[in-house]
Structure formats: structure tokens, C-alpha cells
């Protein structure tokens, strides 16, 4: 058990956390009777307004990796985390809200895979569903919940993962997308307000930014950081995945209209930016405390924030903040479980096995698929040590499989060519698998960068470069399929 956290938690803190968990379940129970049609269950009747979309987009997309991961990075690297790592995502989110949203207007699809299936046909839908399902499995967030369970209650990791999954699945399985977005709203409020409350306490404890500068030096305030430009550029390029983020498509397809989506992204950008700055600045304060010995120098970077909170927040607010951590994780877990289950049932099982499922069967099967997804997540989370590697792999698969066919379907004029979609999606998917397999067999461990590397024809290849190879393969597949598959 992590005594740094638990020894400062009072009964009132635990009561705050218990009240939060109970209220999530109550929301699911209250909404369970309202869901009749599958579109109500999966897309909340396509009625989401701007404020609802802001809450669900922000809270679902930002999880513990943003809260604990970014603050840990900032404790080591400083403001570069906000400027250079974070702002490329702002550009991608802006493009999504302004351009993609307009192109989705009037589309009668349930998911990104369904959208591609309607455009290119079943083979493309299948590749898209597989990539989307793998990406949507919230393994990282489940492990975050397990870590919180261990730190707060001394639970074994597997039990924390099971309980966190069970609560998240329970309310969404009962109430579907409505339960998802309503709990997201409560979770959005808790995760943002708790951080806003914690920020002045923690920053004040080190004497504000003047204290941080005195301890960490001017380098912590360099917006571009000190990493090699290519490394920084490669990291910034990961923002492209936003353009094919399955969660965003599910939410955009559930929106009332295009204006609601556009406005939600514009308001959401403010909140995302503020949240990023809050995690960056408390992380820098944590870095200063590690440098001065207030926190042990060997504190794991992604636990810096968790260690600070009970030291500097008053009784009750510590519980609120830990509730905010739970909220950040659970809002991600529930939303991605819904997306993953939809991929399994609507995009894979229904087209391949049973085309004539009615709404009641679809809802029942999706509930079962959520449970199955949770079970897969717990197993992956408990047995794989390097979850961040697994996530990078999944994100690479998603972008390589979906980026080219998705953007082509939304922006290129002319009739769709099914073979182009199929070759682009399957080509991208197989190229990533091949690249990883080659690196696994012939590559060597790179202990500094914690990855695998291979030297070939005068080039040093890192496993993270899979995207640079797979996206061109996907584009080539699209071009070849476009020529070969065009009907006379």
C-alpha cells in the first residue's frame, strides 16, 4: 500500500469517493428504463447539444494519462509539455471540429467503421472495426484505476482493475450512451474543479513560478524544450490520430447538428488547454519539490501528483481530488467500452454472422460485448507490464488503418471505389503488423529510449517509425485500388 497517500486520507475523504461511485450507479439505474431503440442506446437519440458534447468530449478523451502522465513529464521537462507536445493536438482538434464535423452532416452511421462500411463496403468496415476495437480497449485507464485502488485502499491490482471495470460497465450497460454522457458531465465537473482547487495550493507550496524557476532553472521554461527536433516532431505527429479517433466520430454522429459539434470543439479547446496547463504547472511544482527533497528524488514521475495532493490539500479536498482522478479514468473507460462493444457487435458480428438482429438483440449483445471487452482489458492490463507500449502500438494501428480511407471518403470527390478502401485499410493494418514483427525479430532493445531499434542500409529505425512506413503503404493501396477497382 502507498502510505504517502493513504495515511492522510480521512473518513470524510473516503465518504466523498464513495458518494461519487454510488451516484454513477444511480444515474445508470435511473436511465435504464428509457432505452428502447439501438440508436438511443448507442447514440443517445442523436440529440446531444453543445454543452453536453463539451463535457463528454473533454472528459472521455482526457484520462489518467493526461492527468498523471503529463504532470509527470512536466516535472522533468517543464513547459515544453504544454507548448510543443500539447498544442499540435489543439490544431488537430480544431480541424476535427471545423472540417470533419461539416463533412459528417447528414450521414446515417453509428460509428467510424460503419461510416467506412457504407462508403467502401464490408471488407473496409471489418478492417476499420478491428483497428478501432483494439484502439478503444481502455487498458491504460483500467491500469490507472487499479493503481488508484492500490494506493487508496491497498487493493491488489487485479481486484482494483475488476472493480473499476465493473462499476464503469454497470452504469453504461444499463443506460447506454445517455448514462455515458450524463456520468461524463459529473465526471467532467469533478475532474476539472478538483484540479482548479488543487492548483493554487500546490503551486503556492513552492513559492509560485518564481520558486519553480529558482529550483529548476530557466531550462524548465523553454517552450521548445531541449530534446532533438526530430524526436519532438515525431511526438507532435501523433496528434494526427485525433483525425480518426473513434470516440470523436461516435460523439459527432450522436450530435444534434454540425453547429453543436463545431461549438463544442471550440469551447472544448479552451478547457483542454486549461487542463493541460494545470497538469503542467502542478507537475513543475512537483519537480521542484523533488529537487529540494520535499518529495523523494526517486518518486515515480507518474505518481508525483498523487504524492503531492495529500501533503498540501485540506481534509475533504484530498477526497475530492482523488474522486477527480477516479472521474478522469472512469469517464474514459466507460466511453471507450461503449465504442469497443459497438465495434464488436454492430461492425463485426452483425455483418459477418447475423444480419437480421433487432434492436433488443443489438442492445443485449452490446451489453455482453462490454463485459467481454472489460474482461480482455483486465487480462491485458494485469499481464502486460508495458502498457504504454501496447497503447502506442494500438494508436499506430488505428492511424495507419483508418487515416487514408477516412479522409479520402470525406474529402475526395467522385464515386467510392470499394477496392481502394479495402487495400488502403488492410494494407495499412498489415504494414504495421509486419513492421512490428520485423523489429521484434531482427531489432535490438534500445534501453535509453525504451524501445527496439534496427540499423539497416545506413538508417537507424525505431519501432515508433511504423507510422512513417504504414501510412504511405495505405496511401499506395488506395491509389492502386482506385485504378484497379474503378468500374468502366
Amino acid at each position, binding site marked *: 500500500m502507498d502510505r504517502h497517500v493513504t495515511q492522510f486520507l480521512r473518513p470524510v475523504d473516503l465518504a466523498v469517493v464513495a458518494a461519487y461511485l454510488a451516484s454513477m450507479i444511480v444515474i445508470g439505474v435511473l436511465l435504464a428504463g428509457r432505452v428502447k431503440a439501438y440508436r438511443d442506446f448507442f447514440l443517445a437519440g442523436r440529440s446531444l447539444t453543445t454543452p453536453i458534447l463539451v463535457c463528454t468530449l473533454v472528459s472521455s478523451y482526457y484520462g489518467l494519462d493526461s492527468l498523471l502522465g503529463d504532470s509527470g513529464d512536466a516535472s522533468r521537462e517543464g513547459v515544453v509539455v504544454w507548448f510543443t507536445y500539447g498544442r499540435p493536438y489543439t490544431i488537430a482538434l480544431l480541424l476535427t471540429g471545423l472540417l470533419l464535423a461539416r463533412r459528417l452532416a447528414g450521414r446515417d452511421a453509428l460509428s467510424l467503421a460503419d461510416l467506412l462500411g457504407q462508403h467502401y463496403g464490408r471488407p473496409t468496415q471489418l478492417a476499420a472495426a478491428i483497428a478501432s476495437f483494439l484502439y478503444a480497449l481502455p487498458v491504460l485507464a483500467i491500469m490507472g484505476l487499479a493503481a488508484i485502488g492500490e494506493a487508496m485502499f491497498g487493493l491488489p491490482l487485479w481486484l482494483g482493475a475488476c472493480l473499476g471495470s465493473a462499476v464503469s460497465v454497470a452504469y453504461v450497460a444499463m443506460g447506454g450512451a445517455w448514462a455515458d454522457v450524463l456520468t461524463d458531465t459529473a465526471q467532467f465537473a469533478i475532474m476539472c*474543479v478538483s484540479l*482548479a482547487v488543487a492548483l493554487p495550493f500546490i503551486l503556492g507550496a513552492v513559492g509560485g*513560478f518564481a520558486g519553480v524557476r529558482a529550483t529548476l532553472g530557466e531550462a524548465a521554461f523553454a517552450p521548445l524544450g531541449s530534446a532533438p527536433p526530430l524526436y519532438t516532431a515525431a511526438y507532435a505527429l501523433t496528434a494526427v490520430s485525433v483525425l480518426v479517433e473513434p470516440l470523436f466520430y461516435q460523439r459527432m454522429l450522436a450530435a444534434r447538428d454540425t453547429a453543436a459539434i463545431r461549438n463544442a470543439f471550440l469551447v472544448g479547446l479552451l478547457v483542454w488547454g486549461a487542463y493541460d496547463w494545470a497538469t503542467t504547472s502542478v507537475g513543475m511544482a512537483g519537480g521542484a519539490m523533488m529537487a529540494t527533497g520535499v518529495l523523494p528524488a526517486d518518486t515515480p514521475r507518474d505518481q508525483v501528483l498523487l504524492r503531492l495532493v495529500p501533503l498540501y490539500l485540506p481534509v475533504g479536498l484530498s477526497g475530492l481530488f482523488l474522486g477527480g482522478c477516479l472521474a478522469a479514468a472512469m469517464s474514459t473507460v466507460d466511453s471507450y467500452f461503449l465504442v469497443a462493444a459497438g465495434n464488436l457487435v454492430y461492425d463485426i458480428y452483425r455483418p459477418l454472422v447475423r444480419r437480421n438482429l433487432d434492436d433488443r438483440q443489438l442492445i443485449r449483445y452490446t451489453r455482453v460485448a462490454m463485459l467481454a471487452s472489460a474482461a480482455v482489458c483486465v487480462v491485458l492490463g494485469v499481464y502486460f507490464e508495458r502498457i504504454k507500449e501496447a497503447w502506442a502500438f494500438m494508436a499506430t494501428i488505428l492511424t495507419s488503418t483508418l487515416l487514408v480511407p477516412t479522409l479520402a471518403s470525406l474529402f475526395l470527390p467522385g464515386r467510392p471505389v470499394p477496392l481502394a478502401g479495402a487495400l488502403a485499410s488492410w494494407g495499412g493494418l498489415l504494414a504495421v503488423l509486419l513492421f512490428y514483427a520485423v523489429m521484434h525479430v531482427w531489432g535490438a532493445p534500445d534501453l535509453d529510449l525504451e524501445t527496439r531499434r534496427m540499423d539497416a542500409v545506413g538508417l537507424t529505425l525505431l519501432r515508433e517509425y511504423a507510422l512513417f512506413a504504414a501510412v504511405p503503404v495505405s496511401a499506395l493501396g488506395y491509389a492502386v485500388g482506385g485504378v484497379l477497382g474503378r468500374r468502366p
Partner: protein
Amino acid sequence: VTVWDVLTWLTVAVLGPGVLVICVAVARDVRRLLGGGQR
């Protein structure tokens, strides 16, 4: 006062009062959409 301080004040304003305003708007929309607030 530095640019970092200003950024922090704006952050607290957005994540605190700003977020609560959004949540009030959500409550209004949800009441209307789920039937509780229909006239």
C-alpha cells in the same frame, strides 16, 4: 506578474467557474431532452 501567472489565473477561471457554467447548461438541456423540463 509573469505570463505564467496570467496563464494560471485563466486556467483556474476556466476549470472552476467556466466548467460550472457549462454544467448548468447541461442540466438545462438534459431536463429538456429527457422530458422533465417540457412545457
